[in-house]
């Protein structure tokens, strides 16, 4: 399949090309947004066209009986294992966001008539492991994550790729966080090279008085973009944090919209970006406060450190506000490591190279430490240091 075939196609042509039935609304939405290109604001820095122009083999997504495992295991878009007693099954996605800004959100749904549905109905911690084994493939799947009311769950989202190349992964979550519940999603995605690319398009509904924590740790090389749309109802809260550590020629980052719909909803979004080599980082984040969202509090900040003069950070924090009764702030800084801090460490006998490493790791740690589980925190720290030290062996 060559996805660029969908460029400038009308509804009927898209319907025929994708062989879909009874999904007119989705096709209409996809066609109205158009296949992304460098002219699309959300994909402007991502070189998406190169990914869409390739010829990929398509996979058959045949549901399998689930094995018992400590984690939910998804291999090439098919769920193969889950913890005992956890409700994980394939089902049609009934709550698709019709206001998502990302055309690939709709394409992902059109390509995935059946989604993996995970019901979190206890106060649990669970790992979801995504494994990719197919080269030259388009791997597409959608996951619906439903957090029941009054429940407090944590999901650790991890990725494994087995010696593959030229594969494009289109996946994403539709998360529904019910009233008075909390969902913590901690994603750690290390890509050692550019053997595969990922576009992850998510939607998060945060119901009344519910909390969403979305922390992403994107490390290494490759090309990957997460596109996130969050809707907040009354007294709902989202705490989003994104750490990027990129090296080589990677292009990765976050494009997000946090939409305050309910009164007294609150959001915090912090991005910390460390760019090395020829890497390009992306943080294009909009906070939108609608007429109905009086007394909103919103805070957004992006800090970037460039370790190499060829590294580039596209930071674009934005506020779109339709009311007066709110507190909102946003900002972005991009610079080098703090010279005073470097000197302080050197003045104690620590070499320049080691001092740089300490400061970079410290910058990352301030976000890693927001993951409250010590074991997971150590795991993320180890992943970060492994990637960082692999590029700084001196």
């Amino acid at each position, binding site marked *: 399949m060559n996805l660029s075939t969908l460029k400038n196609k009308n509804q009927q042509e898209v319907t025929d090309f994708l062989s879909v039935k009874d999904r007119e609304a989705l096709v209409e939405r996809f066609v109205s947004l158009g296949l992304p290109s460098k002219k699309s604001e959300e994909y402007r820095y991502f070189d998406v066209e190169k990914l869409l122009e390739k010829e990929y083999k398509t996979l058959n997504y045949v549901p399998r009986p689930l094995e018992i495992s400590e984690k939910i295991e998804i291999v090439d878009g098919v769920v193969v294992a889950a913890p005992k007693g956890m409700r994980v099954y394939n089902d049609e996605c009934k709550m698709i966001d019709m206001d998502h800004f990302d055309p690939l959100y709709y394409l992902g749904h059109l390509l995935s008539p059946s989604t993996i549905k995970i019901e979190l109905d206890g106060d649990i911690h669970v790992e979801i492991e995504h494994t990719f084994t197919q080269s030259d493939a388009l791997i597409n799947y959608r996951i619906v994550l439903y957090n029941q009311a009054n429940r407090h769950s944590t999901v650790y989202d991890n990725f494994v790729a087995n010696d593959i190349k030229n594969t494009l992964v289109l996946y994403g979550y539709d998360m529904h966080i019910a009233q008075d519940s909390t969902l913590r999603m901690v994603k750690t995605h290390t890509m050692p090279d550019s053997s595969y690319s990922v576009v992850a398009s998510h939607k998060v509904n945060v119901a009344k008085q519910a909390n969403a924590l979305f922390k992403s740790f994107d490390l290494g090389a490759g090309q990957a973009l997460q596109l996130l749309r969050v809707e907040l109802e009354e007294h709902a809260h989202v705490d989003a944090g994104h750490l990027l550590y990129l090296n080589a020629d990677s292009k990765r980052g976050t494009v997000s919209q946090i939409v305050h719909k309910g009164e007294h909803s609150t959001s915090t979004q912090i991005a910390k970006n460390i760019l090395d080599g020829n890497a390009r980082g992306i943080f294009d984040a909009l906070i939108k406060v609608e007429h109905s969202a009086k007394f909103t509090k919103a805070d957004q900040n992006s800090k970037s450190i460039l370790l190499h003069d060829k590294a580039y950070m596209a930071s674009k924090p934005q506020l779109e506000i339709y009311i007066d009764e709110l507190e909102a702030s946003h900002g972005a800084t991009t610079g080098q490591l*703090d*010279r*005073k*801090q470097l*000197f*302080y*460490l*050197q*003045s*104690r*006998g*620590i*070499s*320049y190279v*080691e*001092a740089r490493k*300490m*400061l970079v*790791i*410290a*910058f*990352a*740690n*301030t976000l890693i*430490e927001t993951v409250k589980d010590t074991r997971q925190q150590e795991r993320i720290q180890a992943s970060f240091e492994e990637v960082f030290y692999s590029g700084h062996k001196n």
Partner: protein
Amino acid sequence: MSIMKIENLQAKIGDKQILKGLNLELEPGKVHAIMGPNGAGKSTLSKALVGHYDIEILGGDITYKGKSINEMEPEERALEGIFLSFQHPVEIPGVNNAYFLRTALNAKLKHQGKEELNAAEFLRAMKGHLEMLGMKSDMISRSLNEGFSGGEKKRNEILQMLILEPEVIILDEIDSGLDIDALRAVSEGINKMKDGKRSFLVITHYSRILDYIEPDYIHVLKDGKVIKTAGPELVPYLEEHGYDGIEED
């Protein structure tokens, strides 16, 4: 024989020349106090000695143990035994204080060809110092200087001095922002380091610290030069008359 000799030192920060031919010799085992009005060049001198990036040396020489250090990197100077206690220590969020201290100590031990300390050995070595300085044990598990009060930052500087055991110790306004109890604790730490070999350069605006750390020499710095050197008897005179009436040696 001096441990450090500064000859005709001229230095600038940005476009402004601050040090204009400064001469000073630090004797082993002695406490040298540098006093002088604002803008005289006291802090510039301390920065020049440790190789601060703000400073451009225009002329003159700094020798330490008979070797010129003008071209040495800051970390090399530190490993050789030169230590600056900063007037305003920076905060470094995310760098654990204990990890920083152990990294610095192990860099020094490695430089000396000695065995490095593991975490447990390091914590044992720290215990006595923490108690003497009246530092809470959680201060070393926090981020380096982050959220520390002025007094805590200065105690942390002295803690670093105690564990690194330098040979030339430059204290840049160590007394600023300290209450009496903190001043006493900090002074105790400094006095503990006096061993008849180490040399101290105490930069201060006020004589209060000199009640606790008895100086051997007072040097008056004015307009980028040392204009007078005398014994501790000069302190009460300066307190009473200020720097205007001081005549150049």
